[in-house]
């Protein structure tokens, strides 16, 4: 019974294996949604492609790197500027987009010359930038363009530049997740341990799997500075290409997003003996716990307790104000994967919010083990949810607010249910102590704003739109 076949899925009964309703006295030994599997034909998935996972999620975050997308122009635009990851150097990564703009003739006759020309043009136009990632896309992978050979040729001709190649066309995996994997493994194989940097602290770590969404990384950096910990590299929020070539120098790998970046932490442990420490950076209780673990590792517990006390004194009264007003709010989380397990207990413990449904676009079974262990009974856990399922789940659990991306957000707005951008945030950062107050504020504003309800009232009276137009809207 706990694996659920929704009414809308009657013609694609395979979907039952992807939707779980947690019942009393059950655990993940009995039921675990199938995940990281190919989308079932007939299901209108909201997943992205493997190339998107490499470029939009990880590579494109870097602050000092040209992102050359070897493919048609649409692949570039659709993975640019849809996430808000600022940088401390004027947001270079968000101001520019690069593409080889492949057309039919290039597909017919090959695109390597065009790629070489584009790489040189980009470096010529931006002489202050000498780092680049080149990505294949579906068409250039299909025609067999050898982007590694082109990159090698350019690096020989321009000794001051360094280029990393990501051969991860959109079709190469079932979702974005494949792109995370390819970029992680490619980077450790080709770029880690090719450079060293000056060590300025007895305490060093890599911060892995945080992408500086609306300043997350920069907020957490204030904590590491206060603790006296040198960050060797950020993978990849506000990160620098050359810092990531020095990852082998860290004493500890602290991992936030285990899904997108756990691979490189695992490899760093295997190859260099650097321990992996997973933390949750969202929520007061979790953030304090993460700081305590890091400080225990380095033997600087007093500094950690001082930092936590300072932050809690500053932000806890604000959090409590929102908690008082959000208690009992029913929330749905429909994001990529890890935010399901990062958030479900933190919003419950810190804000009194009840999570009633969660859907993951690209999570693996490991993510569902985590979220089902943490999540409540009576909550739905969905892998690769489709639009009709979202409609049906909304009817079943009647959430007060949905944290999801802009695409599904537009859908739920039409149902006059408030949504908060769970990927790029409304008004972040959301990590850390201050960040969780921001999240609470955005949730409060969403739930209590009268606008969403007022927007549902048709003020045209007798001139109201015909039913079929209403349905289409």
């Amino acid at each position: 019974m706990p694996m659920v076949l929704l009414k809308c899925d009657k013609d694609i009964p395979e979907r039952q294996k992807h939707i779980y309703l947690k019942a009393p006295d059950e655990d993940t030994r009995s039921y675990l949604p199938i995940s990281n599997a190919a989308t079932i034909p007939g299901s209108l998935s909201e997943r992205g492609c493997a190339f998107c996972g490499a470029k939009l999620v990880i590579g494109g975050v870097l602050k000092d790197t040209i992102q050359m997308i070897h493919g048609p122009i649409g692949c570039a635009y659709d993975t640019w500027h849809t996430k808000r990851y600022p940088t401390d150097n004027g947001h270079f990564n968000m101001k520019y987009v690069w593409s080889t703009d492949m057309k039919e003739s290039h597909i017919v006759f090959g695109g390597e010359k065009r790629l070489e020309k584009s790489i040189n043009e980009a470096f010529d136009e931006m002489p202050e930038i000498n780092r680049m990632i080149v990505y294949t896309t579906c068409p250039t992978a299909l025609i067999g363009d050898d982007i590694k050979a082109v990159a090698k040729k350019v690096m020989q001709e321009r000794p001051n530049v360094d280029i990393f190649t990501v051969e991860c066309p959109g079709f190469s995996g079932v979702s974005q997740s494949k792109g995370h994997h390819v970029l992680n493994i490619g980077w450790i194989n080709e770029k880690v341990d090719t450079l060293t940097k000056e060590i300025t602290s007895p305490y060093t770590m890599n911060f892995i799997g945080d992408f500086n969404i609306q300043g997350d990384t920069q907020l957490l950096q204030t904590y590491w500075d206060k603790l006296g910990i040198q960050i060797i590299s950020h993978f990849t929020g506000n990160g620098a290409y050359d810092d990531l070539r020095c990852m082998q120098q860290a004493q500890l790998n602290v991992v936030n997003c285990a899904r997108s970046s756990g691979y490189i932490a695992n490899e760093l442990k295997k190859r260099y003996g650097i321990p992996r420490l997973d933390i949750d950076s969202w929520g007061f209780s979790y953030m304090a716990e993460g700081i305590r673990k890091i400080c225990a590792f380095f033997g600087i517990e007093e500094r950690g307790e001082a930092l936590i006390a300072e932050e809690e004194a500053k932000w806890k009264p604000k959090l409590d104000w929102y908690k008082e007003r959000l208690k009992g709010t029913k929330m749905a989380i429909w994001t990529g994967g890890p935010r399901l397990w990062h958030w479900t207990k933190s919003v419950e413990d810190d804000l009194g919010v009840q999570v009633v449904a969660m859907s993951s676009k690209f999570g693996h079974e490991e993510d569902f083990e985590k979220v089902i262990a943490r999540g409540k009974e009576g909550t739905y856990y969905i892998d690769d949810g489709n639009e009709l399922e979202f409609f049906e789940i909304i009817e079943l659990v009647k959430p007060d607010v949905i944290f999801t991306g802009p695409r599904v957000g537009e859908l739920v707005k039409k149902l006059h249910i408030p949504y908060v951008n769970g990927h790029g945030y409304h008004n972040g950062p959301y990590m850390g102590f201050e960040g969780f107050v921001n999240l609470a504020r955005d949730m409060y504003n969403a739930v209590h704003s009268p606008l969403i309800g007022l927007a549902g009232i048709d003020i045209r009276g007798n001139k109201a739109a015909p039913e079929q137009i209403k349905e289409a809207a």
Partner: protein
Amino acid sequence: MTSNNEILSDKVGDLYEYVQERCLWQFYSRSWDRVENIDGILAQATGMFIGKKLDTPTPQDRYFMAEAKIMVDDCLSRYSWLKDASEEEIRVIIGELHGRLTDIAITSSKNHELTHTLY
């Protein structure tokens, strides 16, 4: 009347629920990562509970210690019975906990990626 076995089971249940809810280390990527974490962290935690701290000669040992320290502090503040537990009782409880975590996270896990040879 509650039997000794039931009391023991309740105490193991307390710690098991805590770990399931709070500890990401039980869910690392592969079965060998999970074995390593469960063994290493619970060994450190046992030492802390009974007042015999273990050495941490390697970075990985220091990591186990850091995870165990937070777990032990949290559990001591949540479960008052822990303060009165004898060394023998702690060893039995942690042994049972080790078995339950190994079962849910490794032996009976439905996660198909646990035994992949590569990351």
